[in-house]
């Protein structure tokens, strides 16, 4: 029993930790793309990578201040969105999906290649670029702080606070946009582009705007991740993260402002809970070694998330916040 309580506590921290922020921001971006506009972006992680490396390269390699690094990261994300969107968004939805998934993987390989090493640090990545940000912390970065029985360093606390503020601000932005006529056009594009064109809206321009906006959110997520870990490495930005973010979005409910946020928290909670509990149960012999060893746990927890998603799609296809009526319209 104590194992379960312990696992819940540890998972609870994970649900508020920087990884939850990372996936929440990725998923908010995907929500703008996929949930509201109907764009299939399967390479959200590329935007995150540009965000993280934007800061890292600017600060570590070029010696620019931290704030400029943030701007560089955001600008890089905008440029990537335009590069991906301009040629593909006039075409059918599939083309964006193909372009994004290829770009995400290709960009990672380029960043870790030998020829890029002088800039990106190659497979070793870059580090020590977040000092300028951590120094702003109102708490002593080295000291330990106890909150509700959990321990955080001052630096962690500061990054996490700013990260959740970013989640709050982006969510507010999405909320305001989606209740405006702009959001109405974007949602209509998701339903039927041609109908929207016939009503005098420049569908192409709206799709580009949406792609840029969601990409910028993804870049913010990558920045939070990079600043929390204090290092960037191209291999941290595997495209599997994009699909975990999709899982978070569907878990919480697509086309809902809070869907991606709550979805990301639940995703991280479940992953960490399964991880901690399984390890505890294996180490004290409740689960025999013959059945499961602790090295399998890392994989098994994703299986559990998959099972959970399947149950969700059967019993609550709209996700946690979604509107069942809305989802059922597709089934007709």
């Amino acid at each position: 029993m104590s194992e379960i309580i312990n696992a819940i506590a540890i998972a609870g921290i994970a649900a508020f930790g920087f990884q939850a922020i990372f996936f929440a921001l990725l998923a908010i971006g995907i929500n703008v793309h996929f949930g509201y506009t109907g764009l299939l972006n399967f390479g959200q992680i590329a935007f995150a990578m540009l965000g993280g490396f934007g800061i890292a390269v600017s600060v570590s390699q070029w010696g620019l201040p931290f704030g400029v690094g943030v701007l560089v990261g955001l600008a890089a994300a905008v440029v990537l969105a335009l590069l991906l969107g301009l040629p593909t968004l006039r075409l059918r939805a599939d083309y964006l999906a193909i372009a994004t998934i290829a770009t995400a993987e290709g960009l990672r390989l380029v960043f870790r290649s030998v020829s890029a090493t002088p800039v990106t640090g190659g497979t070793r990545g870059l580090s020590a670029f977040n000092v300028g940000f951590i120094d702003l912390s109102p708490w002593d970065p080295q000291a330990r702080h106890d909150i509700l029985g959990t321990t955080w360093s001052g630096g962690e606390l500061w990054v996490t606070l700013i990260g959740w503020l970013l989640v709050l601000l982006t969510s507010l932005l999405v909320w305001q946009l989606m209740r405006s006529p702009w959001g109405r056009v974007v949602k209509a594009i998701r339903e039927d582009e041609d109908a929207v064109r016939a009503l005098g809206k420049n569908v192409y321009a709206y799709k580009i705007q949406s792609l840029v906006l969601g990409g910028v959110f993804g870049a913010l997520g990558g920045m939070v991740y990079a600043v929390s870990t204090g290092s960037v490495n191209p291999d941290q930005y595997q495209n599997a993260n994009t699909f975990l973010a999709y899982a978070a979005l569907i878990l919480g409910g697509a086309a809902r402002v809070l869907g991606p946020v709550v979805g990301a928290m639940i995703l991280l909670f479940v992953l960490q809970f399964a991880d901690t509990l399984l390890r505890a149960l294996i180490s004290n012999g409740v689960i025999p070694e013959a059945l499961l060893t602790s090295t399998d746990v890392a994989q098994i927890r994703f299986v559990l998330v998959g099972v959970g998603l399947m149950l969700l799609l059967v019993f609550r296809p709209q996700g946690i916040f979604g509107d069942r009526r809305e989802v059922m319209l597709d089934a007709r």
Partner: protein
Amino acid sequence: MPAEPGAHGAHAARPDEVPAAAPTRGSASGRIPQRLARTALKDLPWEVGVAKPDPAVVVDGVTRTFGGLTAVSVDHLEIQRGGITGLIGPNGAGKTTLFNLLTGFDRPDTGTWSFDGQSLGKMSPHQVARLGVVRTFQLTKALSRLTVLQNMLLGAQGQNGESFLKALVPGTWRRQETANTERAMDLLRRFKLDAKRDDFAGTLSGGQRKLLEMARALMSDPKVVMLDEPMAGVNPALTQSLLGHVKDLREEGMTVIFVEHDMDVVRDISDWVVVMAAGRVIAEGPPESISQNQAVVDAYLGAHHDAPLTVEEEDRVLAEAEAEIARESGGPDVISSDGTRNQR
């Protein structure tokens, strides 16, 4: 939607002819553009490409081929302003393709076409729509996961809140939104959809979707409305109400072009009918002229549909049948008669 001043100006020269025209729905008080359009078209010769007194849309030499198939090849076509023009033709005649070309959804291989003297050749669909040429689709495009009211509001033009930055400041679009909502509700009441305002459009029936699509197109204050089979799949009672709505559009001074297969509907509401077959305009004229037109009858029923079998053909069929019987003789009757029938 104020009526086009030009439309009336063109006919003001001969007001004496107005009372002679066909009776119209009594709703238009004093202002009777239907009669004007029909009167204006009355003396025109019934020939393909005839010039109209006041054309809103002019098409010149437009062709569109898909591989080896010429889908549309229209030499010259003018659409009278303020009238209802019916576009008919057998399946595959190129009616919808012509619609797509006119509204920028497809690009022709050659040709020019213009609205109000302004060439539409290089324009994308949304630019055409902003000029006031709005279309509906053959397969209704209700935006399912938007409510009926949101569908309507989408039709309004020149909305501040549709720009990204202004969307963030509700003060810039609140008032406009309220005004648009009022106008949308007026239209919804006219189309008897006001009770559905907060329902998802995806929950509407097929006929209601047709109504919604038409109402949504009207939200944009169009000058030309192009309806692609507005009555397809709609029950007869609703057809009557849709017909009334189409006539109302004309009363309000809009130019209506519609594709339809139901000849009763076409005869009932059109001022002018254009017949297409195999991509070409094969006939045009007032509705009563069309059913007597030999080219139209041929296009719909085949050129030799009313000619009897010739003697040679009859002999050949007979000979085949006899040969079959001879071959099967001795076998059971059923088989031989079956075989014969298969031969025919």
